[in-house]
């Protein structure tokens, strides 16, 4: 891909991001941060390429370390987001005021 195509993808994605993020409800801003954190770890793609090549041992080890760090984020980020969103789930069945018994 040439530079201009890449730049086009970038600029259009910024606009998509702008409109999509404004539609996120404020109550979910914390899950928004943890999920964006998980997806920004797509940088693992670069780390994998470095780790896969045998041409430079130093680059390979840097890549492997990058894979470890990005994996912490990918698994941790999606899991903690899922955990938070599950807490919001319980409120999908609204409890009528006044007759909620709790344990």
């Amino acid at each position: 891909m040439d530079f201009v195509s890449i730049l086009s993808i970038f600029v259009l994605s910024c606009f998509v991001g702008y409109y999509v993020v404004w539609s996120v409800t404020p109550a979910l801003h914390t899950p928004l941060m943890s999920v964006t954190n998980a997806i920004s770890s797509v940088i693992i793609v670069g780390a994998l390429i470095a780790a896969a090549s045998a041409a430079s041992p130093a680059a390979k080890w840097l890549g492997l370390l990058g894979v470890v760090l990005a994996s912490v984020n990918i698994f941790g980020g999606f899991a903690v987001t899922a955990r938070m969103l599950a807490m919001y789930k319980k409120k999908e069945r609204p409890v009528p005021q006044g007759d909620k018994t709790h344990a």
Partner: protein
Amino acid sequence: MHEAAATPAWVLIAYLIAGVCFILALRGLSSPESSRRGNRAGMIGMAIAVVTTLAVHEIASLPEILAAVAIGGGIGLITARKIQMTAMPQLVAAFHSLVGMAAVLVGAAAFLNPGAFGILGPDGIEPVSRIEMGLGVAIGAITFSGSVIAFLKLNGNMSGKPILLPLRHVINLATLAAILGLIAYFTVDQSPWVFWTVAALSFAIGFLLIIPIGGADMPVVISMLNSYSGWAAAAMGFTLHNSAMIITGALVGSSGAILSYIMCRAMNRSFISVIAGGFGGDAVAGGAAAAIDRPYKRGSAEDAAFLMKQADQVIIVPGYGMAVSQAQHALREMGDLLKKEGVRVKYAIHPVAGRMPGHMNVLLAEANVPYDDVFELEDINSEFAQTDVAFVIGANDVTNPAAKTDKSSPIYGMPVLDVEKARTVLFIKRSMGGVGYAGVDNELFYRDNTMMLLADAKKMVEEIVKNLG
């Protein structure tokens, strides 16, 4: 020999699908119902990106890679399971630092082994790639060291007090100029010293940028670092000609920028004034000293229970003090008991209550507070005037009427919750000595219709619960 030019079409399409999955992940967050589907879309997108990358490159070290994923993934999963919801701001800061560091490592690997990344031209690394690589490493390093400082401040290892170096603006601008100059110079001279100096200076400026920022501005800092981690990923995407990374980086970058903007607006502060730093130390402002002698009304848990039982409507205003004492569960219990008495109970949330955007919503969700009872500032502010009791639990600055009336106050102009309009204000606070994070005294404490409940938030709410039962 540009490898990217020879990338098969199916790979480009796979990365595009991954990018679409990531867009769906964010889109899902427009409502709690669709959010879990969105999170799953994000996971699928990540799996597609990883599998595609592994399929298209010759892998000389699959066992090591799998081991690295297992180690990282294991640490991530355990952390995600164990972390307390009150510690989310620290966790997010720590995660941001990892993305930043990963960007630096990928940049360094690309510098040492450009052939593997397809960016090797006839005269060494292609000039345009050198710029992209330099920017990616710089933003990654700033994200890393900035996030580490944010983590230390949020985790209490470092005081929330701003550290103001003399001449800091001059130092920061000079460092920034040096980084940009060296990145430009990198296009003509790709010596290792240029590359590593860019990295070192960027680590230093990330540190310098965050130390002057006070505790009250943490929601902005976290969002800002979120944005940086996205731009770092996007810059590495440019280096690698990888559309999945560029799409994702742009999404995350805009997300953080928008959240920073929302947080700044909620504090009536400009982004520049936040990153210039200084606002919101532990207890700094002059107004605090005069507070000690003023008369105020002190109430007990019994009084509070009695007042709320009689009320038609109670609005609960949670703040960071609730998070610190982990009072959210006791608070929910109190709300339930009041509802049994026929009281309408609502929760009012200020956008910058807590240490990150939406932090209070998460804590209330954790305690099973019904989603429909929780309101944003704009939606509930007019209701305080028709409310019998405003129950403020550890939220000082966001309820301070001085923001509306006192032009000399550092928080003047900040939108606040109009709690003082309620017939009675119950205010839980640890003691009269401390002031809020912005370091400003709150005149509300001394008003006739305010009753101070001086205790640890959780203990006080538990006492009230006993008195309601």
